[in-house]
């Protein structure tokens, strides 16, 4: 808040500037200051300063800017306790020389921002002075002797016996005059921003207004303004209650606080990530439900085959009764949906034609294509946006951004009133402070040469185990999927297999993949157990990397299996509708993954806790493995994204899954896991999770979907794209139809063909994007360097000033001492 008037006329002329060649003087400072300590007086008495200043005729407010906190660390010790009001006179009781004062008051550090800082900093002088004089806060005699800043601090003496009354009045008048020069609004703003008591502000205002001509007619409050005030109060209260209602609507706030307080930010970030995924799925579900499921459900297509009965296996396998429902791609019609109105009118041919053209028609293939495309596009935008936001939050330019100090002073939320919330908040603060402390205080490790080599070997071994495990996993999935494919081919040629058995055999591949997903991360954590890391966060990141490698390779093999084998030759396994089959496969994978996770959480962690407690006799519970759980979530979400094209209701399944998983995980964490031994702050964890979600996961899913839409031939007997060469044709056909109907839009069609189908444009766009990103990152780097240099500069300046001021004072005293000595010599003889 910069005041826009100057209360001072600084003596800029006498201002010193820092010496040109700082390099030369900088090194010898500490030596010089040490010399000065021996010679200079003991501490700097402000009281003397004040009196000396008052002798000069100057606008008071423009005097000493900030408090004279000059004594550096060394001098501080010499100075003694100035906190408890003891007198610290200089050795020979001399005040500052006027030369020193002139120079001090015109220093740039005291004149910059003077109009803002001056008022604030006057109170420093005032209260410091009061302390020096030994005033205790309990004396009520004199109003002005308080810890509250008062207007009388504006250059006025506390003891009227000290200085003349007229001077006090003069200075107050000057301030009032300055205030009058402002407009009413600015004056009000200035007064409001002053750290003075309300009584003093009112006094100032009264004085200011006295000089103004009397205000027109604001003495009477009109009657209706009272009503207005009540309305405003009521509105404000209802706004607050709406805000708190919204706040309480945010699910799981209290749970998050508890988890964060007890287990730290790492575990909390996992649960927050889960909530983010839930929101993505809700969005996806709403879009597909509104644009695909609902219209199709209102126009049910005829079922081709006979009635299927419900057997419990559907819930897991997704086949059977669910096959020809709105759940899968195959159910959607490829024509324009129209409401049939034959029932409403009496059957007559003439009215038929009319009612068709009147009703709304819904182009299903186009809607399918655009819905999927648009939802992916919007998800991409949301992901990139949240990624950049959390990136900006965690990686700041200014390295020295004083996180601990900010945490200490701004973490107490004064709005919290409930006792239980207050306790929770203090526990949270405690945990977070510990985490930041652990991050900020870095332990230096001594690396002997032999030790480092041994550690490197252990790391290499662990990585070899992990990569070997992953490769084995991938190969086994590949061969098993091939085996299952051939098995399906065989059984599809036979006609006497039991359909339920056939369905159950389809569960084999998902079960294997889920099992591998369960066992291999345990192998990874076993391998990591023998390794040593510098900090727990590095350990988490390495675990993340390994798990990511596993999941990406498994997903790649599976995608190849579906798109490369099943979709390429669907007739091999006698499939009418391969998209429905792939949709069912994805559903099976999701459900099996969920079942295995549940079993692992409920039984595995419980058993492991009992085992480690009773058999291994460890006193602590196992820690929550963040990396593995997060990657499980990302894996499931990738499957869901791939599957939206083939099964529009898959997001709903995912939502239910995530909700259940949340509560199960929370319960398990509270019961089975331990508070981390070395709390570590993972400020960048959320960023990393979102980045992982965006890059391997979403990118992979969208590549899969794009490839499917672009190159694979949709099945000819089911789904909204039957008969087309690729799914993409639906969009193209629509554009061609538009062009046919309105020849003016041919430009649009040509632009569309050029932009979307020409890869050159995409390359150029991506190249420009990358160049811009590189440019910005270089700018950020440069700014960081500049900030570092400036901070060094500030410290140097402080040292300069100390040296120069003490030197000045010494010179002055040595000058004064000489005549005194002469005088005393005179008196002696």
């Amino acid at each position, binding site marked *: 808040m910069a005041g826009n008037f100057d209360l001072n006329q600084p003596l800029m002329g006498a201002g010193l500037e820092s010496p040109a060649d700082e390099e030369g003087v900088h090194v010898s400072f500490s030596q010089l200051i040490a010399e000065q300590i021996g010679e200079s007086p003991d501490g700097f008495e402000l009281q003397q300063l004040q009196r000396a200043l008052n002798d000069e005729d100057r606008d008071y407010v423009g005097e000493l800017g900030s408090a004279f906190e000059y004594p550096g660390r060394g001098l501080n010790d010499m100075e003694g306790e100035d906190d408890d009001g003891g007198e610290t006179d200089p050795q020979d009781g001399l005040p500052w020389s006027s030369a020193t004062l002139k120079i001090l008051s015109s220093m740039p550090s005291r004149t910059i921002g003077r109009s803002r800082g001056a008022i604030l900093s006057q109170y420093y002088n005032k209260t410091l002075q009061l302390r020096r004089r030994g005033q205790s806060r309990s004396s009520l005699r004199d109003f002005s002797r308080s810890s509250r800043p008062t207007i009388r601090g504006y250059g006025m003496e506390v003891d009227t016996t000290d200085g003349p009354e007229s001077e006090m009045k003069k200075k107050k008048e000057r301030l009032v005059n300055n205030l009058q020069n402002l407009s009413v609004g600015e004056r009000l703003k200035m*007064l409001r921003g002053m750290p003075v*008591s309300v*009584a003093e502000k009112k006094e100032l205002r009264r004085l200011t207004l006295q000089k103004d001509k009397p205000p027109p007619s604001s003495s009477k409050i009109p009657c209706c303004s009272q009503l207005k*005030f009540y309305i405003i109060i009521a509105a404000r209260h209802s706004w607050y209650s709406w805000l708190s209602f919204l706040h309480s609507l945010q699910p799981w706030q209290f749970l998050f606080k508890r988890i964060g307080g007890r287990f730290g930010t790492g575990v909390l970030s996992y649960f927050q990530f889960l909530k983010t995924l839930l929101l993505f799925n809700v969005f996806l579900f709403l879009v597909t439900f509104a644009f695909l499921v609902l219209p199709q459900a209102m126009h049910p297509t005829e079922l081709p085959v006979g009635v299927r009965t419900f057997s419990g296996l559907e819930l897991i396998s997704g086949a059977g009764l669910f096959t020809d429902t709105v759940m899968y791609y195959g159910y959607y019609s490829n024509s324009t949906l129209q409401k049939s109105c034959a029932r409403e009118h009496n059957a007559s041919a003439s009215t038929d034609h009319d009612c068709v053209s009147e009703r709304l028609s819904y182009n299903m293939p186009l809607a399918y294509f655009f819905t999927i495309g648009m939802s992916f596009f919007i998800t991409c935008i949301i992901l990139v946006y949240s990624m950049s936001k959390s990136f900006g939050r965690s990686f700041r330019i200014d390295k020295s951004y004083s*996180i601990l100090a900010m945490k200490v002073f*701004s973490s107490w939320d004064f709005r919290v009133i409930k006792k239980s919330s207050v306790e929770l908040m203090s526990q949270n603060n405690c945990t977070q402070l510990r985490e930041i402390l652990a991050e900020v205080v870095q332990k230096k490790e001594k690396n002997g040469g032999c030790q480092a080599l041994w550690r490197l070997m252990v790391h290499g071994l662990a990585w070899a185990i992990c990569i070997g495990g992953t490769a084995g996993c991938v190969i086994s999935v590949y061969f098993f999927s091939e085996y299952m494919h051939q098995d399906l081919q065989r059984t599809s040629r036979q006609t006497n297999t039991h359909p339920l058995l056939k369905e159950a055999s389809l569960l084999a591949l998902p079960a294997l993949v889920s099992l591998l997903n369960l066992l291999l991360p345990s192998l990874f954590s076993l391998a990591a157990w023998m390794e040593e890391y510098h900090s727990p966060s590095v350990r988490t990141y390495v675990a993340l990397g390994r798990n990511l490698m596993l999941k990406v390779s498994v997903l790649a093999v599976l995608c190849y299996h579906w798109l490369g084998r099943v979709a390429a030759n669907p007739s091999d396994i006698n499939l009418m509708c391969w998209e429905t089959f792939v949709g069912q496969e994805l559903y099976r994978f999701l459900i099996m993954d969920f079942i295995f996770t549940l079993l692992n959480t409920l039984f595995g962690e419980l058993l492991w806790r009992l085992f480690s407690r009773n058999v291994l006799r460890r006193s602590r519970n196992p820690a929550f493995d963040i990396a593995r759980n997060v990657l499980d979530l990302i894996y499931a979400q990738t499957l869901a994204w791939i599957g939206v094209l083939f099964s529009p209701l898959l997001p709903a399944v995912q939502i239910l899954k995530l909700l259940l998983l949340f509560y199960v995980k929370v319960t398990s964490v509270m019961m089975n896991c331990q508070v981390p031994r070395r709390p570590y702050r993972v400020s960048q964890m959320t960023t990393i999770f979102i980045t992982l979600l965006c890059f391997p996961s979403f990118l992979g899913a969208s590549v899969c979907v794009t490839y499917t839409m672009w190159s694979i031939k949709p099945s000819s007997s089911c789904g909204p794209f039957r008969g087309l060469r690729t799914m993409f044709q639906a969009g193209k056909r629509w554009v061609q139809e538009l062009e046919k109907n309105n020849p003016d839009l041919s430009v649009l069609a040509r632009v569309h063909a050029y932009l979307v189908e020409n890869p050159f444009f995409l390359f150029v766009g991506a190249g420009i994007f990358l160049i811009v990103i590189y440019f910005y990152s270089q700018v950020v780097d440069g700014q960081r360097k500049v900030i570092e240099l400036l901070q060094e500069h500030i410290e140097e300046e402080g040292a300069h000033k100390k040296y120069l001021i003490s030197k000045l004072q010494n010179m002055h005293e040595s000058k004064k001492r000489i005549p005194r000595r002469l005088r005393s010599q005179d008196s002696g003889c």
Partner: protein
Amino acid sequence: MGSKQSIFTAQQLDAYQVGGTPPEDFLVLFYRYRDLAPQLVPLDYTKEPDVKLPYELIGSMPELKDNPFRQRIAEVFSEDGEGNMSLDDFLDMFSVLSEMAPRDLKAYYAFKIYDFNNDDFLCKSDLEKTLTKLTRGELGEDEVKMVCEKVMDEADLDNDGRLSLEDFQHMIVRAPDFLSTFHIRI
């Protein structure tokens, strides 16, 4: 409920505008003040009575009851430094702690609140006391010492071993949630 005009004169209401309290909150705050001690606070403020409520009453307000810094808040905003507040002080306190107070003003008063020994500097002992109140004594002694050291290292720009108002303001201005946490809702 009396109307504003019967409790305060129009000039008084006008004058209170400088306080920073928005006019719609003014009556609300006056009645909250009065509710603390109805027998002490008269309903007629036109003669500007000199009424101060003792700290115990102020500290028993629901908004301040569980706040570990309530004593410091009352001391900083009271005229006598003991926590006994007049209506002016009360209004001042809530206006600084409201949403609309300017950031510099809040930073100034936050500095004063955390300055336990009132020497206009945040020295190590002030920091230690702040930390103890913040965590309700859950942090160990050596942890508290380490935190204080680190805070000094981070925030003390001119290297004098204690934080002045400028150091504090420089640091707190960049804290993203300072404005929203240093806020009491009335």
